């Protein structure tokens, strides 16, 4: 089947059979290696990308389901505050989980900006206002890091969230 994607701003037309995942199509067919394959079963978050603006797992999405999609990988976020904050706060060690962490952080900050609650939000009926470290940890809990870079990742995300709330807008 023929599908069309915009990946990190670049337009691609590709032929895939139905069993190819978004992850495999990106890596194997398009050579986009900024999405990582970890578990390949939805359990680690390494393959996280933004599809039409939402963070999703590319290892459990079929490419044919996403015809026409706009896909952003960590490579397309290199100049964004989140990616810079990861570097400044040393939020990675081997770096394997990092592309997924960065995409997830961008998606999560956007969800919070829209007022979405999380599992640790005290009152789900109230709007979310600012992100505590607990909120950041819960919202990032779908991304596992073998190296344990979590402390610095939380610091990086906290800084971006605080800067955004000080600016009173989405500075993501």
């Amino acid at each position, binding site marked *: 089947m023929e599908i069309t994607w915009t990946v990190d701003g670049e337009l691609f037309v590709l032929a895939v059979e*139905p*069993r190819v995942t978004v992850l495999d199509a990106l890596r194997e067919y398009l050579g986009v290696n900024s999405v990582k394959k970890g578990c390949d*079963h*939805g359990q680690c978050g390494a393959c996280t990308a933004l599809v039409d603006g939402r*963070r999703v797992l590319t290892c459990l999405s*079929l490419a044919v389901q996403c015809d026409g999609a706009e896909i952003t990988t960590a490579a397309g976020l290199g100049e964004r505050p989140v990616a810079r904050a990861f570097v400044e706060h040393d939020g990675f060690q081997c770096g394997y989980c990092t592309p997924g962490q960065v995409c997830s952080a961008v998606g999560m900050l956007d969800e919070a900006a829209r007022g979405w609650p999380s599992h640790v939000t005290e009152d789900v009926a109230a709007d979310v206002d600012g992100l505590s470290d607990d909120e950041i940890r819960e*919202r990032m809990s779908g991304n596992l890091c073998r190296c344990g870079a979590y402390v610095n990742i939380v610091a990086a995300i906290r800084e971006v969230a605080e800067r955004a709330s000080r600016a009173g807008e989405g500075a993501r």
Partner: protein
Amino acid sequence: MNPFDYEQATDVAHAVGAVTRNPGAVFLAGGTNLVDHLKLGVSDPELLVDVSRLPLDEVRELPDGVRVGAAVRNSDLAAHPLIRRRFPVLAQALLAGASGQLRNLATTGGNLMQRTRCPYFQDVTTPCNKRRPGAGCSAIGGHHRDAAILGTSQHCVATHPSDMAVAMAALDGVVRVQGDGGERGIPVAEFHRLPGDEPQRDTVLRHGELITAVDLPGTASRSVYRKVRERASYAFALVSVAAVVEVEDGVVREARIALGGVAHKPWRATQAEDALRGAVVGEQVFRDAAEAELAAAAPLAGNAFKVPMARNTLVAALRQLTGGQR
């Protein structure tokens, strides 16, 4: 993964027809369970009929309740103002499940239809009656820490993994399904089956019937979901409790309770509900209600801990909902 065909459903009738006609066809929604099973070889369909883009993605107010479309994403449902205000137990249950990335893909219909996380069911090299009827159950004599304690049979002791469905069972939700011959409504609490001697059948749905929505009646602002698991986040429930309680002058007027992680289906705790209705709020009443429900529990050696865990979680949920009410 074996090859299969893929078809985008153009409307509900097309989706129902395409799967009804082909015994080897299945619906595909978010893919978070099905694609995993295709990779593991647990599922081997001929055709996937994609229903994720059908116009079933609305949360809409009914004269007395809310209708949740089958294609509504778990994340959108949890964030929806109507749900957060009227059914906090449901928002909490959704937010207690999976991860942000998964909830952005997972749908209402797919979540109800997700299959057990029993490790032997997912490992095609081991015997499992649910995967291959008559093969035997590896869990009963093996690893069954996560297994059911209520409603089990000698053929299967698996639990249903959904958090969302537990909340919907307590809310008296009704699953709306469309088949070849028309539409029908099935209470969430009767949607999933106990294993009996046919553990391969998870639900009462017939092949080709499509879930189109779940209707949630009324409002349940005094409600809560509590989930106990191995780690604080991103794990399935060992035990969970969804409770809706109304108290008037220190007396329980109405209680609706469902338990998760303890049975092959969201377990509606009618014994506990009966014990609570009309009783004066208090610790002993809560314990007695929980004991009444769990009297029928028949755990295995490796999951006997779930009986006191379920009791304590239920008592804690009731305490939380009635706190400061005496």
